[in-house]
Structures are given as structure tokens and as C-alpha cells.
């Protein structure tokens, strides 16, 4: 794992250098066309942007709505043709974004941050655990694996949602079921609405029930902090090491350039050192 760390660090340095070479104003977003707008659930939607950029799964972009503000949104796709953003309506910017239509232009800058180091993880079995809108950045991994299927062994998806109507990516989920080990759970299911064959219960229970060891496996977790905490506990019980686990952090962010300091977690910037961290890097950092 040490070897990986050094390569990671050098890659970090080179990306900083790349930024230096650019003379353009880092705060200015650029316009991109909206190719598609799709309403996923009552409070989330996915937009596809005509944006051709090189990026890693798990990186994010800053979306600007002039007059309202800027918001970091994780990229939930992996393609050199487009960028897909899954957005949940929580704040001012994301609520206003819900009004966007196909054909509009959207001001975006990025990509930013450290995504999932997929190249370093070749040859592993992948376990992907997502809760609610935390599934969005993880979808980038799924897209990545689809394009590089031969590099990875088994893929196991554990996706948890609040209720059947909150299930994200309904268009793709059946396809995933065919290709990977998929387990979808919903916390509540009052109407006993068994679309997608989802089990009722927390994602942690599904995880506990599954038969697995830590051999040649890496785990990616993204979801609400409470869920991540319990998932990590279960994984530890199952014998996983800290450096096999990748988690995502969420913080208030303005610049995404490692300057404004709002996203700092004990000296680590979520925007340039994260948002994806290997668990051993930040496990002692707690909230501050």
C-alpha cells in the first residue's frame, strides 16, 4: 500500500502543477449545454451536460447559477462524451437548478478533487455501498467498470434508500442486476411497493447478512454520515483493513481550489485532498 501512496502523492503534485500552468481565472465558470434532464425521484433529478473533460470517477464540479450562487455537485458518470450530474434539492442552488430544461446552458467549472483511484485498484473485487443520494458519485465507478470490465473481478453493489420512491437510477438498475451482484434495500416500505425487488431494512443489515471476507477487495462507501459509520463498523468486524475502504466527505465549499478553507477537516481540504479519502487517511479526523 505504501507504493500506492507515493504514486498518489506524485499524481497530486502533478495536478497542482497543471493548475499552475493555466493562466485563466480559476473562479470563472464556462457555459455547457444541457443535453438531457431526467427526474429520478420526487426530490432528485439527473442532468447530462455536453461537457468533454478528462476526469476520475468521484470527482466533482462547481455549478453556478448567477444571482443564486455556486454549488459543488459530484459527477455521477464516467465518459469522455458527456458529464452527468445527479442533484438533490436541498439548498438554494440545487432547488433552483430543478427548473433547468433540456437545451439550456449551465455555467460549470471543474472537475475538482481527488476521485476514486481506480487504476491503482486493478485486479480487485469491488464492493460498492451507497445510501440515498450518496449513490450518485458511486455510479461513476460503475460506469468506469463497465468500460474496463476486464480489470476488475466481482462487483457487489449494496444500495440503500429511504423508500421505494427514492430509488435512484431506476433506468439503469435492471442492467446492473444482470451484470453485478446487486442488493437494494429500502428503510421503509409502507405501501409494500416492491418495485426493483428491494428488501425492506437498512443497507447495514444486508451487508451483515452477506457472506464475505476481505480478500482482494476494496470497498467504496458514500452516504449519510451515520450510515457510513455503521457500515465501517460492520466491515471492521468482517476483517477489512482501513486501507481497503474508501469514503467520501461532504463539506461547505466555496472555491474548490484549496483556498477558501471552508471544507477543511483538520488540515485536509475536502476539495483538493478529497472528496474521496482512503479511510486510514481521515479516520482520526472526526468532525473538525
Amino acid at each position, binding site marked *: 500500500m505504501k507504493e500506492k501512496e507515493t504514486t498518489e502523492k506524485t499524481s497530486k503534485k502533478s495536478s*497542482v502543477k497543471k*493548475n*499552475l500552468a*493555466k*493562466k485563466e*481565472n*480559476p*473562479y*470563472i*465558470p464556462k*457555459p455547457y449545454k444541457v443535453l438531457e434532464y431526467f427526474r429520478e425521484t420526487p426530490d432528485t433529478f439527473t442532468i447530462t451536460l455536453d461537457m468533454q473533460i478528462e476526469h476520475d470517477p468521484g470527482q466533482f464540479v462547481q455549478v453556478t447559477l*448567477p*444571482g*443564486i*450562487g*455556486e*454549488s459543488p455537485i459530484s459527477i455521477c458518470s464516467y465518459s469522455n462524451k458527456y458529464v452527468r450530474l445527479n442533484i438533490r434539492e*436541498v*439548498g*438554494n442552488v*440545487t432547488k433552483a437548478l430543478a427548473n433547468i430544461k433540456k437545451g439550456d*446552458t449551465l*455555467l460549470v467549472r471543474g472537475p475538482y478533487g481527488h476521485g476514486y483511484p481506480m487504476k491503482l485498484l486493478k485486479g480487485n473485487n469491488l464492493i460498492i455501498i451507497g445510501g440515498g443520494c450518496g449513490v450518485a458519485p458511486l455510479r461513476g465507478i460503475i460506469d468506469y467498470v463497465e468500460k474496463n470490465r476486464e480489470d476488475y473481478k466481482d462487483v457487489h453493489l449494496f444500495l440503500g434508500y429511504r423508500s421505494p420512491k427514492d430509488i435512484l437510477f431506476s433506468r439503469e438498475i435492471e442492467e446492473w442486476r444482470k451484470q453485478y451482484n446487486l442488493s437494494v434495500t429500502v428503510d421503509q416500505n409502507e405501501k409494500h411497493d416492491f418495485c426493483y425487488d428491494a428488501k425492506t431494512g437498512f443497507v447495514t443489515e444486508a451487508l451483515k447478512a452477506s457472506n464475505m471476507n476481505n480478500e482482494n477487495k476494496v470497498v467504496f462507501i458514500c452516504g449519510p454520515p451515520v450510515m457510513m459509520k455503521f457500515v465501517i463498523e460492520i466491515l471492521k468486524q468482517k476483517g477489512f483493513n482501513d486501507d481497503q475502504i474508501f469514503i467520501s466527505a*461532504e*463539506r*461547505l465549499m*466555496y*472555491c474548490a*481550489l*484549496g*483556498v*477558501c*478553507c*471552508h471544507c*477543511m*477537516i*483538520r*488540515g485536509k481540504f475536502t476539495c483538493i485532498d478529497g472528496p474521496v479519502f482512503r479511510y486510514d487517511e481521515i479516520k482520526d479526523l472526526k*468532525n*473538525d
Partner: protein
Amino acid sequence: MVYRIKRDELNIFLEGFARKNQLVAPLKGKLAKFELVKEEQVKDIYLEKNTYFPAKEFFFKKNETVFTFKDNKIQEPKLETPKRIFFGLRRCDLNAVKHQDKVFMEQIKDPYYMAARENSYLLGFHCWEAPSKYCFCGTLNLADYYDLMFYDKKDYFLVEVGSDKGKELIKEFKTLFEDIDITITKEEKKIKGADRLLKDDIKGLYDHPDWQKGVNQCLSCAACTNLCPTCYCFELHDETKTSNIQEGKRVRNWSSCQVLDFSRVAGEHVFRQKREERFKHRIYHQLEYFKERYGVNMCVGCGRCIQGCPTRIDFVQIINEMK
């Protein structure tokens, strides 16, 4: 290279600047601060003690227009700064500029900061001894970072050249400066009575109960971060015009890690909810986190955060007393 300038000729030198360009230097007022100095004000420049407010706002402005917009079109502002000479920056303030340079010119190329910084000349003023009882720069390994440094020798000033820009200035006014063949040693540059901070590594002290002494005295009023010459946190806001709400600008304002809103995300969650976490965050950013990234302490030991604190929380003493 060291030069000499007579005491009464210094004012001629500065007045020359004030006439042709912009001169920024400390003026006393109610509280000493760096201000634009007119030719006739040069005699009032205040050098007895360090200023209450730092010179930070001249480079990292508290209210900066990032861009203007109309509908979905974005317009970058034109950035032009006249030639400015800063006189009377103490060693701590010079290093503060250095540390902000690292953030805004190395980490990123911040066009606003760079435009303000580009045409600026930094003229330092050496403290022979600590000008305030709150100073603690002595143990923080401050670097030589200036265009010219002035050493007060009563009848005359020794002027040390620190950069090519400084050399240029001397050339421009060469009749006033006398070339002398001496060097100022490191020992001479040492500021007396400023070695208050006794620990240089506080990494292991995060959970120390003594932090509570400071936290109990903390109002979270953000005086410390606003008076700090190095604190560089900011936030971005959009403002619109009443005449056309599709038109407006994005502004960058100073921000303080001491207030709750600093770490609040959509959905009303605040990450650093406890006062203690916020209090420690500032000190650890100053003495630990910045060092991890840039190799130097962010803190320059000017003591303004203690001097300006309504309850004078002396975190240096708190750290020193920790066992």
C-alpha cells in the same frame, strides 16, 4: 547590499513616492492602521509601535468583485493596480504577505490577489525589540521577505536590499542612499523579547484539557481572524441589482472560522458546532495544518489576535503551560 539614508532624507524619499505613486504606511488615528498617505501626511507616519490592523486588505480585499453577470453571461472585471509602495511593514507583516503569496500565487493563480500584489513594493521596518507585549514572532523562524528593509539607527537608517525590485528603487533615488560596505548579521536581526512561544509542535496536544481555558473566554466574535494578517478564508456571494435581477456580481468576502455559519451545509448541518472545535481549528490551522501543506507556520507571531481579543485570550501562554 546595505545602504544608508539620513533620517531627514527618509521623508524626502517617501514624499517623492506619495507625489508620483501611491504610498501606503501606518497612520496613528484612533488605532494605527495602514492607509494611503498623501505627501503632506508623510511626517505623520507612525512607527513607534506596530499597527492594530494589518495591511492584509490591500492585497486580499475584504470585498472583491469576482465577476459581473447579466443573464447567463459572465464578465471578468478589469484588474489594474497603480504602483504602490508599502512602508513600515514589520517583519511579521512581511512574512504574512509571504504566506498569503503561497496561497494565492502558488496554490492557485488568484488574479485578484496577483493584480493587487504585482505592482507593490514592500518596504520593511525592523523592530529592534518586540513593540508589544503580545508579540511572539521570535520562535517562528520568520524569513527575510522584502524589497527593502529599514533599520532605525537614530540619526540614520540602514537599508538592506532584499530583491531586484528593491535595487531598482534605490537606483531611482540614488542621490539619497549612500552605499556602505557592511552586512547585517542574523544575530542583529533577532527581535528582542519576542521569544514567547516555547513549543513549536502542538500536534499531540489536540485533546489537551487546557484548551478549555481559552474556550471559556471566547465570544466567537471573530476579532482574531479579522485582525490576523495571514488568515485568508473567504466566502463567495452573489448580489443582484434591483433594476434588473438577472444582472449582478459575485463578490468575495472575508470569512471567519470562529462563527457557526463557516461550516454549515445545505440541510442546516454545522460540522464544527462546538465553540471548542472552532477555537482549536484556528490555532491548529495557524500552527499545524498550514505547515503540513506549505512547510511554514502560517502564524507570524504579530500578536494582533491577542491584542484585539475582547478578553485577551493568550493562546501562546495556554500552549506554553500545557504539559
